[in-house]
C-alpha cells in the first residue's frame, strides 16, 4: 500500500482479481443454476433493489470512463486551453506541437532508460527471491517474506526518501537515473517475486529431481527445466515491471536528481504551460496502455484455458 504503492498495489489487486476470476469461472455453473430459479418469483422489493443496483453500476462505469473521454476529446479542440466547452473546432495540430517538443523526447528516453534498468534489476531479483523462498520453511520463510512485501505496504514517497538519504548521505551517490532505478526496483522486485512464487506453487519438483538423477548438472537443470517452466511468470513480471516503472511518479520525484522522466514532465507541464498537447500525449499513452493491457489479459486467459 505503499502509496507509490499506488500503482503497485494496483497490480497486486489485479493479481487478486485474476485469481478471483479463475475461481468464478470454476464454480459458475452451480451458481448460475441457483440464480435462475430465483428469478422466477422476484418480489417487488427485490426488483427495486436490483434496479437500483443496476443504475448504480451504469453510473459507476460512466464515472470511470467519462473523465477519460472528456480528456481525450479536448485533444481535438482548437482551444489553447484543454477543454471541450466551448468547442471551437476540430484540429490535429496538438499532435504536431507534441512531436516537435524536444524536452518531451528527452523525458521519454529518460523514462525508457529507467524502465529498462528496473526490468534488468527487479525481475532477476524477484526471480532469485522466489527461488530462495521456495526452499525455505518455517520462521525464516515467514520473516523473509514479510520483509520482501513490506515495500508494497510503504507509501511511495517514503521509499524515494529513504533511498535518497541512504545513497546521497552515506554512499555519496546523487539523485538521477541510477537512484531512480534503485528506488523503483525495491518495490517492483516484490511484484516479480509474487508472480514467480505463484507459478512455483504449481511446479512439480519431481521434474527437477529427475533431471538431477539423470546426471544433469544444477545449472543445466535450471536452464532446461526450471527456467522454461517459470518463463511465463518471468515475462509477466517483466511487462509489469516496465509499466510500473514507466508510470511511477511518487517515488521518482525524490530520487530523480536533475533528470526528468515522462511523468515528472507531464506534471510540470500541467502546472506551467498547459496546452492540449498534454492531452495528446495522455491520449497516446492511454492508447498504448490499453492495447498492452488487453494483450496481456488475452495472453493470460489463453494460458489458463
Amino acid at each position, binding site marked *: 500500500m505503499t502509496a507509490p504503492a499506488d500503482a503497485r498495489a494496483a497490480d497486486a489487486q489485479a493479481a487478486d482479481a485474476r485469481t478471483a476470476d479463475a475461481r*468464478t469461472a470454476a464454480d459458475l455453473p452451480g451458481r448460475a443454476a441457483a440464480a435462475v430459479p430465483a428469478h422466477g418469483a422476484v418480489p417487488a422489493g427485490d426488483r427495486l433493489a436490483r434496479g437500483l443496483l443496476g443504475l448504480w453500476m451504469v453510473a459507476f462505469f460512466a464515472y470511470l470512463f467519462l473523465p477519460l473521454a472528456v480528456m481525450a476529446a479536448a485533444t481535438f479542440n482548437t482551444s489553447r486551453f484543454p477543454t471541450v466547452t466551448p468547442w471551437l473546432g476540430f484540429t490535429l495540430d496538438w499532435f504536431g506541437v507534441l512531436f516537435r517538443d524536444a524536452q518531451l523526447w528527452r523525458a521519454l528516453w529518460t523514462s525508457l532508460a529507467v524502465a529498462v534498468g528496473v526490468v534488468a534489476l527487479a525481475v532477476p531479483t524477484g526471480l532469485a527471491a522466489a527461488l530462495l523462498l521456495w526452499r525455505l520453511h518455517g520462521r525464516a520463510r515467514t520473516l523473509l517474506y514479510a520483509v520482501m512485501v513490506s515495500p508494497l505496504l510503504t507509501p511511495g514517497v517514503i521509499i524515494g526518501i529513504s533511498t535518497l538519504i541512504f545513497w546521497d548521505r*552515506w554512499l555519496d551517490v546523487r539523485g538521477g537515473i541510477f537512484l531512480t532505478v534503485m528506488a523503483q526496483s525495491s518495490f517492483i522486485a516484490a511484484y516479480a517475486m509474487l508472480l514467480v512464487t505463484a507459478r512455483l506453487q504449481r511446479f512439480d519438483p519431481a521434474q527437477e529431481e529427475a533431471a538431477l538423477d539423470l546426471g544433469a548438472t544444477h545449472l543445466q537443470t535450471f536452464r532446461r527445466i526450471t527456467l522454461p517452466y517459470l518463463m511465463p511468470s518471468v515475462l509477466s513480471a517483466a511487462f509489469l515491471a516496465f509499466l510500473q516503472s514507466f508510470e511511477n511518479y511518487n517515488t521518482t520525484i525524490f530520487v530523480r536528481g536533475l533528470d526528468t522522466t515522462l511523468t515528472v514532465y507531464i506534471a510540470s507541464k500541467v502546472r506551467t504551460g498547459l496546452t492540449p498537447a498534454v492531452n495528446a500525449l495522455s491520449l497516446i499513452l492511454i492508447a498504448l496502455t490499453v492495447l498492452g493491457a488487453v494483450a496481456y489479459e488475452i495472453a493470460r486467459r489463453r494460458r489458463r484455458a
Partner: protein
Amino acid sequence: MRAALRHYGPVLTAAITALTAFWIVVLIVLPQLLMVDFSFRPMLPPSKLGGPEDVHTLRNYATLWGNTVHRGIFLQTIWASALVTLSTLAVCYPVAFYMAQVAPRRRLATLMLLLVIPFWINELLRTFAWYVILAYNGPLNAVLMTLGLIDEPQRWLGTPGAVILGMVYVYVLFMVFPIYNAIETLDRAQIEAARDLGASWPRIHWRVVVPHARPGIAVGCVMTFMLAAGSYAVPAILGGPSSRWFTEIIYNWFFEGGNWNQGAAYAFILLVLCVGFILLMMRLFRVGIGEMAK
C-alpha cells in the same frame, strides 16, 4: 539453506542468495533504518558531522508539534484521507456486491476487463482528466450553468474538495477488488436463506454480506487510506494553497527548505500514521494480519 544448496548447487545458490541479499539489505532495510536514524539527528554542515553536536535528538519531531501550519496540514491530511476512504467504500461496496453476487456470468468477464483497464492507466493521467473537467473554463462549470444550478463559473481546482474527488476516482479500484474477492466467497444460499426467513435487503447486507466481507473491506480501506495519505500527484495537480497535503510539506523540506533531517522526521511520522491505521483497521474489523494478507 541446505535444501537450496542441494537443489540449485553452489553456483546458483550463491547467485540467488547474493541477489536476494542485495535487495533486502541494500534496497529495503538499510535505507529504512538509516532514514529513521537520520530523522533523529540535527542538520549539520559536513564539517560538524560526527562532532559533539551530532547526537540523537527529538528536535525534528518537536517541529511538527510546534509549527501550527504544519500541524494543521498534517491533521487535515489525516481527516481528508479518512474521508476519501469512506467515500470510496460507499462507491465501491455496491459495485463489488453486484460483480460478486448478481452479475450474470457472461457479463462478468466483460465487466472485469472494463474495471481493469482504467486501473492500468497512469495515476497522473487519471488525475489530469479531472483537472480538465474541474477547470474554470471546463465542462463541469459549463454543464452546471446550463442546468441553471450556478450563475457564474466556480473555482473548483485548488479546493480540498477537488483533491478528495480526484483521489476517490484514482483509488476506487483498490477498494473494489478486495471487497469483490471477499463477497465472491459468500455462498449465495446464505443470502437466499436470510431472504426466505423474511429479512429485508438492508438487514441481509448488514447481518450477512458485510460480516462476511470484513477482511476485504479492511484491506480496501487500508490500501485506500495509505495511497491517499501518501499521494503526491493528486494534491500537486488538483490542489492549491488551501488544500496542501502533508507529502507536499515533506517534499518542500527536501527540495526547498533544504533540511533533509527534518524531512526524514516528517516522512517517518507519515509511515507511523499508515502503520497505525492498519492496526486500527485490524482492530475495528477484528481481522488478523494473516486474513488481511490473503
